[in-house]
């Protein structure tokens, strides 16, 4: 069973930093010395992973930004979220732990 659903709250791991340069996101997972570049949509999703809002709110936000049917967006965003969790960039947070210390909540533009 997939542990990530639209009700999940995801936050960036404490060792993950990212910033936006032009339209792309540079993501650093420092503990592993890994660096990734995300396209504009990937960057937007990572920025939405603030450790507070559930995935369904991301989808609401993105529906206002992209012309795409909700079921398609929901499927793609969930798949991407799972991938980011598997890569160690995001982690699921229980509702009671939302936005505690150690979970980055910065927006794009600065290293967060």
């Amino acid at each position, binding site marked *: 069973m997939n542990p990530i659903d639209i009700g999940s709250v995801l936050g960036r791991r404490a*060792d993950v*930093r990212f*910033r*936006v*340069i*032009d339209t*792309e*996101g*540079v993501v*650093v997972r*420092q*503990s592993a*010395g*890994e*660096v*990734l*570049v995300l396209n504009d949509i990937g960057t937007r999703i990572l920025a939405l992973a603030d450790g507070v809002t559930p995935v369904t709110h991301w989808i609401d936000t993105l529906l206002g930004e992209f012309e795409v049917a909700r079921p398609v967006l929901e499927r793609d965003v969930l798949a991407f979220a799972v991938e980011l969790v598997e890569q160690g960039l995001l982690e699921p947070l229980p509702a009671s732990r939302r936005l505690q210390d150690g979970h980055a909540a910065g927006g794009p533009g600065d*290293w967060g």
Partner: protein
Amino acid sequence: MSFGARFLRHPERFPERQRGDAWGDRELRLDLPGGPYQLLGLSASQEDGVLATFPAAGAVPGGAFAAGAMGATGDPPVPIQLLRCTPDEFLPVDVRGWDYGLDFDWSPAAVKMAGLGLFGRLDWRPGGVGMGGLAGALWIHEDGGERFPGVFENFLRVLVAYRLLELGGAVLHSAGVVRDGAAFLFLGRSGAGKTTAARLSLARGAEVLSDDLNALVIGAKGGAGGCVVLKLPFTGDLGERRALRPPLPLGGLLRLAQDSADALAPLSRAETLACLLACAPFVNVDPHRRERLEQVLLALAAAAAPRAYTLRFSLSGGFWSIIDRITLS
């Protein structure tokens, strides 16, 4: 595993300051990027070992890294003390099939390291000796001999990486190749093809600076928005350690990807930054210097981005004709 536990019998006794017994009374100045570096407390054998391996002061009149490069003439030297320890302070390590890496412990004012036959520390002392107060201490049990230069180099690589970062530059995992007076850096981690690309370049008449580590800095003048490449004496299979070279304008940053055909595609600024971050050894895993590193690499990426590419290369060596076509246009 806690810091030092792979190498040290008593990591809990790691020295908290740069104190100990010197090996001897010899001193030596190393003229390397970020330097000069002043070695203190060497024995005669250690001095011979360093002189045989690294370029030392006086080898080039006026210094190899004068105007426009890191470590301008007149900077106070960065001191490095060589201190005694004993072989029984180290654990036996089976290195067969092992990918060697130093252990680090970072704090805002110091970096501790431990490895095969060495432990050391870098300390930043406000107002202390050396610009920025950086000073190094290396504890070793080798009084010269065959293994000494390699052990010393492992420490020196780290020190130079931190020193250049302090000065706004970066040591990069790369093969540096000189062609038509400009330096091209082939970037990639182990296995990416740096040495292969360097060999293919050598076969085409290019000069290899190092196939392992080179330094990139913003120079007073230079190509690609002012970036210059500094030769380091840290080589793998190719490159002459003791040969000195003045700073070279950057011809191109080439992120390596092995392929069956040759092709060149521009890197965005974000991709350039990501590549530099991934290829900045030692400092890119230090949690206390990441702001500084990102600030420095952002500046380098912005300056170098117009000449930054992904190079898909084959073993034909034909990639230089593509590079020449684009970079010389």
